[in-house]
């Protein structure tokens, strides 16, 4: 076990180191393109007064610059330094190369921050890239020196502290030195790459005000979705009440009125009508219960998400394992959204997946509720095919939640839903197993 772990650790260290060196090397190449882009942009800006040509040239070079900075953002994100795009959204109906395009480009502060990065970014990328490339090369040189020496026959050379190696002992001493230098290079490379990425983030990430602007855009969109969904839900409830329960109550009072008329001269008929009335009231109760369950399941109010999901699973015609780690209750709105999201995915699973077994797991750690619904079914679930997944997405987006789907053909399908939220103080619950 221990040996196995250390082998894995070394493997990971080696992979990270080599990747760091290669990425550092790529930084050198990319730094050179920065210089080219910077020169192009300066020329384009200088040409702005030239009719037609100037207006078109700036947006075009900026498109190239954005491609370059986007690449840098992606590179930073792959090593865990998240850099989101700060640009203003493209105005609708924009004609490429026109005045509007020019204005959209130059009025965006992110444009100027991109340009400001090109020079220093190139210097830092080049510098750091060279450092780890050179250390690596020197290390490789130490490791390969003896064969090279043998190949070259005789001559003078030296390496590290063994400068001027004159015999085999000196030459052999190059090996461990080279290995150490190489190890240092591999250890340092990921960190140098990280420093480069952090430097890029200084310029290329959204500023505080840009972040706020992006957030407002996102919130406006999710609010619109939420309001739409709410309105649709209210319409559905109104229709169900109006056409179902209300109509039934009207007929009920009608039947009772009739029975009242009949009771003196036709007691048997009145009796029959009253029996009918009771049946009708029973049906109204059933309808109301279904309606209530659709709005907010009572068990959710009573037991919270954990209990409600366990109860839900009990009612499904499939053996599912439930794993819950929720030491408390969620806020009611999040709880409801999370419940309906799980319920919807389970319904989809029952309906489409042809699964034999599945699992539901609910976990809350570090301010994040994670819900994973998995099955061993046919897979190939397509988020574009139905409205189910997008509905869940909209429901969760109101709380900044996300949904990710993994469903290769042949299965298994794994749906992961995450919602950032707080957990209220723990409440004691009766122990209950899984279904």
């Amino acid at each position, binding site marked *: 076990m221990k040996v196995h772990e250390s082998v894995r650790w070394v493997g990971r260290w080696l992979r990270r180191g080599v990747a760091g060196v290669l990425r550092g090397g790529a930084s050198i190449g990319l730094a050179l393109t920065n210089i080219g882009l910077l020169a192009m942009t300066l020329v384009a800006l200088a040409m702005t007064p030239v009719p037609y040509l100037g207006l078109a040239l700036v947006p075009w070079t900026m498109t190239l610059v954005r491609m370059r900075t986007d690449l840098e953002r992606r590179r930073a994100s792959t090593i865990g330094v998240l850099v989101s795009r700060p640009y203003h959204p493209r105005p609708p109906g924009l004609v490429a190369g026109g005045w509007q395009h020019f204005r959209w480009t130059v009025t965006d502060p992110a444009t100027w921050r991109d340009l400001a990065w090109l020079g220093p970014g190139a210097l830092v990328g080049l510098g750091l890239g060279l450092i780890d490339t050179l250390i690596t090369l020197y290390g490789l040189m130490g490791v390969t020196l003896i064969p090279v020496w043998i190949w070259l026959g005789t001559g003078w050379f030296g390496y590290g502290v063994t400068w001027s190696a004159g015999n085999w002992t000196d030459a052999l001493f190059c090996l461990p030195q080279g290995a150490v230098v190489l190890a240092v290079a591999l250890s340092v490379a990921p960190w140098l790459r990280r420093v480069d990425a952090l430097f890029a983030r200084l310029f290329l990430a959204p500023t505080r005000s840009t972040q706020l602007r992006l957030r407002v855009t996102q919130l406006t969109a999710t609010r619109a979705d939420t309001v739409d969904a709410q309105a649709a839900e209210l319409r559905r409830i109104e229709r169900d009440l109006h056409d179902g329960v209300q109509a039934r109550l009207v007929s009920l009072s009608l039947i009772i009125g009739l029975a009242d008329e009949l009771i003196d001269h036709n007691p048997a008929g009145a009796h029959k009508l009253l029996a009918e009335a*009771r049946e009708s009231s029973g049906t109204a*109760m059933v309808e109301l*219960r279904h309606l*209530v369950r659709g709005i907010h399941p*009572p068990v959710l109010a*009573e*037991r919270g998400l954990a209990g409600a999901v366990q109860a839900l699973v*009990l*009612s499904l*015609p499939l053996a599912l394992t439930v794993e819950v780690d929720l030491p408390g209750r969620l806020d009611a709105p999040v709880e409801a959204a999370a419940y309906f999201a799980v319920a919807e995915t389970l319904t989809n699973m029952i309906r489409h997946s042809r699964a034999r077994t599945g699992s539901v797991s609910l976990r809350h750690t570090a301010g994040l509720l994670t819900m994973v619904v998995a099955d061993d079914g046919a897979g190939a679930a397509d988020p574009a095919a139905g409205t189910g997944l997008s509905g869940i997405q909209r429901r969760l987006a109101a709380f900044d939640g996300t949904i990710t789907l993994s469903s290769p053909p042949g299965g298994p399908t794994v749906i992961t839903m995450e919602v950032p939220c707080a957990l209220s103080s723990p409440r004691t619950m009766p122990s209950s197993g899984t279904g």
Partner: protein
Amino acid sequence: MRAVIAEDHALLRDGLTRLLQAFEFEVVAVVDNGPALLPALTEHRPDVAVLDVRLPPTFTDEGLQAAIAARAVIPGLPVLMLSQHVEPLYARELLSSPHGGIGYLLKDRVSHVGEFVDAVRRVASGGTAMDPEVITQLLARREPLAVLTAREQEVLGEMAQGRSNAAIATKLCIAEKSVSKHINNILNKLDLPPSDDDNRRVLAVLAYLNS
């Protein structure tokens, strides 16, 4: 027979009290909230308790929790839970202490006075009264029930609710003898240990449906 009632809706509380009194129950305590329930149950030790699942102050499942707690203190305390909705999950929790009378019914069932009083009596005498809706939900998820004939499934449903052979015979309009024959077949096919005790029979069936 002495009864304790817990219900927060004043109208239903009075209705239940009058109904039970009319059928010669002695209502020894009437409670309208959760915290007062457990003391009332442990103090009066009634022959039967008729309790609402959802009670103030939190309006969650306090009645159910109090019932489970009371049955831990007084094993076999007969409890009939009433609720606006029924959950197999709650039924399972109630049945976790398997001695004595357990009932779990929708509130609507109260309106069928005769059947309701029957259920209260059955629970008081150590029997079981499970709502048909719970049974339907449990039956719906059991595929192996396909080995049973339609009639046998019907009988299983009635049996799981807690009815005796005689009651099942009347309900389904068949002879009591054929009921016991059906039940024998069911218990054999589902691999449940046969027993004459009505309550144990129900527990076996529910355990099977829950598994």
